[in-house]
């Protein structure tokens, strides 16, 4: 699973860190309600905060169990931010939007931000 870089988008958006391209992978197991909730929550966050500069790949580990190893997936659902670096991992169904935004570095970490 090599992360596909997108230099074009990067180049156009380079100056502001807030404008970086987000390459996101969401790992789920089957079509459980929790999986579906995670997908819905992620789409909503991206639309609101990352319009036009994100890509989401949903990986169903029931279909591709071998893919769990590469990103060291244990808990499900897990969202992996491949870009921008560094890699970030968020576990859970993303229903806590505040924490999700902090985890994606879209909101500053506060001392009590966890």
């Amino acid at each position, binding site marked *: 699973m090599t992360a596909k870089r997108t230099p074009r988008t990067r180049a156009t958006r380079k100056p502001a860190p807030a404008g970086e391209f987000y390459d996101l992978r969401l790992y789920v197991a089957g079509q459980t309600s*929790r999986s579906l909730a995670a997908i819905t929550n992620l789409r909503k966050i991206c639309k609101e905060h990352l319009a036009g500069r994100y890509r989401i790949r949903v990986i169903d580990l029931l279909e591709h169990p071998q893919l769990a190893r590469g990103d060291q997936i*244990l808990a499900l659902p897990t969202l992996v931010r491949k870009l921008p670096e560094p890699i970030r991992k968020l576990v859970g169904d993303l229903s806590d939007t505040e924490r999700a935004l902090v985890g994606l570095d879209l909101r500053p970490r506060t001392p009590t931000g966890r």
Partner: protein
Amino acid sequence: MPPRRAKRVAATSPVAKAPTGIQGLDEITSGGLPKGRPTLICGGPGCGKTILAMEFLINGALHQREPGVFVSFEETIEDLTLNFASVGFDPRPLAARKLLALEHVRVLPHEIQETGGYDLEGLFIRLADAIDRIGAKRVVLDTIESLFSGLSDTRVLRAELRRLFDWLRAKGVTAIVTGERGDGKLTRQGLEEYITDCVILLDHRVNEQNATRRLRVVKYRGSTHGVNEAPFFIDDHGISVLPITSMGLEHAVPTGRVSSGMVEIDGMMGRRGFFRGSSILVSGGAGTGKTSIAGYFVDAACRRKESSLYFAFEESTDQIERNLGSIGIDLAPWLRNGRLRVHAARPTTSGLEGHLSTMLRLIDERRPRVVVVDPISNLISVGTTIEVKAMLARLIDIMKVRQITALFTSLTGDDSHPADIDQGISSFMDSWIVLRNIERNGERTRSLAVLKSRGMSHSNQVREFVLTAKGLALLDVVRDRGRVLVGSERVAHLTGRAHAAAQHSIPRARRS
């Protein structure tokens, strides 16, 4: 009628066992770990959990044709490979043959932001994938409690762990789950609440600079098991557990005799020497001739073309050879042709179980008919009297089973009283020879007595002996008016008699 065998079978429980292949552990557990169930192995850092788990997989793959998966929550595949190598094993060829799979599940503390509900299905999927890929029958999870450092929702973790162990049972794999020892609990996260099939506790303690390892089966549902702590040892051959009392008293009792190497001592032992397969204790103060007696014993064995093994805990091979040479025992030819092997080691070079493990390995390799341990009292410096007793009991058990005749020397502090250690171990010994320096009339004379010798009528006399360049010689008992004379008294008595005889003989000669 084979009552021994029948008893063994009856004592074995109906729980199916997966042999670990680890020497001693299968003995304690009457056959191995519960097959198709998880076993918890717990203990502090560096107690040997990982190595035990590794050996379980390797032996399963090599000897039981049961493929195994090693899931490490702490070490990378590279580190694991090195770790396997440290017990003398390269996992790669087995991995190539699909008999072994290594899996690193990385859990970094606080790497993960939690944003809502989750479960550990990802871990299950990875495990299932690894298990199914090679058709694994054995699984190791080392150390699963690491999950608690990476994920904060302990309620979810606990529920998921419970589900995981149930899942492993349903899969029918024999699993080892390792856990770090916690305060007042067997494991930090109380894994013992979830895994009740079999729990084994490892311990690593340092006692006066000597590290000793102990293993104890805390529980084993549906099976009998040894309840005592058993010492174990890790070296480049892996783990050996040395159960203290596993053998019982079931060994065959031989009636053949083995010469002590000295006609006089054989004579005191019902005229025919020691029983084959018996244990003999030779105790005495410093310089009473213990090693000399040991020397005669191995020399005689070598002359009988028997393989002999001499464990020296006080002197080097050269020293022993030189010292015994001074009383006319030449060990050089036996050392050269390999009939005699001297293993010299300082007691402090390793813990007691280390010595025991080495001794057992050499006994395995050399298959000796006679063994000397000179002196056992030196081992006290690396263990307590109780530990030394336990070790000797184990050693003697094994030698009895193999019908090895063993002679142990022991240095006693005081001439008049046997040391504690002798009191403690004498019950394992079939014969006990006590050497003394007797100080009387301003001179020291050496004496020898057979304190006990099971199953034979032995001499009750205290015999004086001398050590000369020609060897050790027991002097004939000289009595004078109901008293046994020793030292210059006997010499005087004998000279007096000789004079008398001479005086008698002279006129006779003249007469002729």
